[in-house]
């Protein structure tokens, strides 16, 4: 066991773990928010919930016009009906959630110590279905986006409150994994999430302006004008990985949940404004 290789591996491990745990999540959050403050001094913290429209005034005008009569209204209406429709056993989605599912989206994702995993709002909806002996819904589009749209709508204006429990190394580890995923370069184009959304935020990529990573989790689900339908946050993550020609992690896979956990944590204090429309 004392082979040089083993010692080398140990040293690498120490190096990685020490560099990853260098900053506490709270320090990360402050550092990233300060970074964007310097980059876009004209923006208040709450403005980041508007995503790229906060820094693209032309697109913002058309977005605001769309939001006056938004295309997600049909999904919202159906979502509300679904949310209160009883299952065969008489229970409803609303009964699975604290406060009957109203204005709670800001508390997701959270670390569940019992399950030893991150619970997102979408996974909680499917957990509710499983408890009531119903098959899980697909996580990228369709019915789940409608349910999420209603839950997001009731949570509008709530400030994101993602908590990493103290004395829980597993939760901290999940956060660190999400952070590592964010900064890890991958795929044929060798991009990380940070390449676009930190290093080049606000610059053009072909005709589009790159959005800041801060605020990426505030406005889901979203009606995408490019697909003409509602999609979830994880669907967007998957599209990003496809665009950089990287292996695509499945929606609600541990990797993407960790990424959501990280992004949501650094966006603590931002108001929720989902559901939304995006280009």
């Amino acid at each position, binding site marked *: 066991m004392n082979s040089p290789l083993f010692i080398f591996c140990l040293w690498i491990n120490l190096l990685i773990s020490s560099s990853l745990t260098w900053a506490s999540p709270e320090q990360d959050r402050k550092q990233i928010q300060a970074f964007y403050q310097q980059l876009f001094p004209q923006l208040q913290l709450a403005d980041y919930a508007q995503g790229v429209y906060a820094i693209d005034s032309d697109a913002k005008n058309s977005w605001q016009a769309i939001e006056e*009569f938004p*295309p997600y*209204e*049909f999904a919202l*209406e*159906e979502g509300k*009906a679904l949310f209160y429709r009883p299952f065969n056993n008489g229970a409803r989605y609303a009964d699975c959630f604290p406060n009957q599912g109203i204005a709670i989206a800001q508390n997701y994702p959270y670390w569940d110590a019992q399950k030893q995993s991150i619970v997102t709002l979408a996974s909680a909806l499917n957990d509710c279905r499983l408890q009531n002996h119903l098959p899980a819904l697909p996580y990228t589009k369709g019915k789940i986006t409608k349910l999420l749209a209603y839950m997001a709508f009731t949570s509008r204006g709530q400030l994101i409150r993602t908590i990493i429990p103290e004395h829980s190394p597993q939760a901290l580890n999940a956060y660190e994994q999400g952070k590592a995923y964010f900064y890890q370069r991958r795929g044929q184009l060798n991009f990380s999430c940070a390449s676009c959304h930190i290093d080049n935020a606000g610059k053009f990529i072909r005709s589009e302006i790159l959005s800041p990573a801060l605020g990426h989790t505030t406005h889901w689900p979203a009606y995408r004008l490019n697909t*003409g*339908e509602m999609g979830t946050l994880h669907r967007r993550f998957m599209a990003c990985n496809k665009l950089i020609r990287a292996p695509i992690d499945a929606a609600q896979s541990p990797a993407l949940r960790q990424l959501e956990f990280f992004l949501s944590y650094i966006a603590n204090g931002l108001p929720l404004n989902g559901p939304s429309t995006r280009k």
Partner: protein
Amino acid sequence: MSTIKIRSKRFADYTLVRTLIAHPMETGHNKNNTTGELIPAHFIQTLTFKHNGKVLSQCQMGYGISKNPFFSFKIKSAKAGDKVSISWQDNLAYSDTQEHIIS
């Protein structure tokens, strides 16, 4: 649930009526990703806009219009309490109509 949503807003010299319609607007050129078969064309052909029962506009539409289309109409001389109605008919002979009272 109606497929048509209508909203109106009165300004000093005109009234803006906006409508959002839930419709697939299939062109007939799209393929089903899994089976590779063409999805049959399914699009709105006529859209009728009435004000107090009188036809103000009849739009002849083709498949070049987006899914879940949005339209807005500006009408002069509309008062509170006036009734507008919007109806559509598509190439598969489905149709829907919705009334709205200007507030």
